[in-house]
């Protein structure tokens, strides 16, 4: 019984050591990640960049192409999530305005026809 207890205890110590090594000392490293794994604040900034460009160029296909790089979700959904984050975290009125401008343009976008719906 003591022997079994010792064996299990040793295994637990080993497992703890393995976890410590695998999580802390040498965790799995993801060096070639894709944009869809970006943290929400980085994603929001990516959307903000797209909105900043769109505000000047007003080229919706280009904006959609840029947003498509971020996620498989619909562009409206991506911008909506970013806008929500931006509103909650006190982005400047100018930044919010740019993102809303893009959001509104996307809402009137007809993906089938590739045109703006009046």
């Amino acid at each position: 019984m003591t022997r079994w207890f010792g064996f299990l205890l040793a295994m637990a110590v080993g497992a703890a050591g393995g976890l410590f090594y695998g999580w802390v000392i040498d965790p799995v490293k993801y060096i070639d990640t894709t944009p869809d794994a970006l943290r929400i604040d980085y994603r929001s900034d990516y959307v903000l960049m797209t909105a900043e460009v769109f505000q000047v160029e007003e080229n919706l296909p280009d904006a959609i192409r840029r947003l498509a790089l971020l996620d498989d979700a619909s562009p409206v959904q991506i911008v909506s999530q970013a806008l929500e984050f931006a509103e909650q975290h006190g982005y400047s009125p100018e930044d919010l305005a740019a993102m809303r401008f893009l959001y509104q343009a996307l809402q009137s976008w007809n993906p089938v026809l590739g045109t703006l719906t009046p």
Partner: protein
Amino acid sequence: MRDERGYWYLLTGVLIGAVLGLLYAWLVQPVQYTHTSPASLRSDFKDQYRRLISAAFLANGDLVRAKARLDLLNDEDSYRVLAEQAQRSMAEGASFDEARAMGLLAAAIKQGAPVISPTLPPVPASPLAETTAPEAALTATLAVTLTLDGTPLPLFIPTSPSLSATASSLQAPLLALTPSPTPGAPFVLVNREQLCDSGLGQAQIQVLALDAAAQPVSGVEIIVTWAGGENHFFTGLQPEISVGYADFTMTPGITYTLRLAEGGQPIPGLSTSECKGADGGTYLSNWRLEFSQP
């Protein structure tokens, strides 16, 4: 009997436990990667990210924000990486606008130019923008105030190459409170010389664009034509030489004509020929053309 077996069972337990722990840590429940940073992106996505940062910089003129964004990519030397990517894009036949945006951003980083923002004063309210140094924002506001004190200036860096050249050329003189160059004045050829440079290894047309204050101007579009071909390129893509510099590699036997897209006289008869360098060696000659705004 028990003593003969010793304590090997403990070592066995530790080993089995360690293997199970590693399997769990690496395979079953590895470190999450759902909240990654731009620094971990694959290189092609980093290229896309840089393109978007440059395009956003061109749209809002906010260098402080653009630099903060570039810092997220953990590039060792942002301006060099940008300049190289701009040149690579041009070589690969990618969009001129994208290459130009990257070249302009690289040039702005090299120059340390102030922010030209359409939204005054710059309000760094996003989490990313909060990382920018307050003194940088102050400099930016000051620069814009100085700008507004004198001649009214466009607050956007416009997308037209000719206007952007004017905008970028205005930045350096403003900091030094020197008179601004004439906006939109056409460039004129002030120097044309044929060089025999042994160090280049290829025949080039080297162009340098300067404003009226003799400051290099980035973003000037240059058009080179020859029998059966045409090529466009911009100053500012090699900021390590000069932000007003651009070059074009000539093929022996072909005669080129060069002109700036925004006007000015065409410069015909540009071809390379063999020449003797100072060291007595034979090389292909280069052309050096210097343009300036009056």
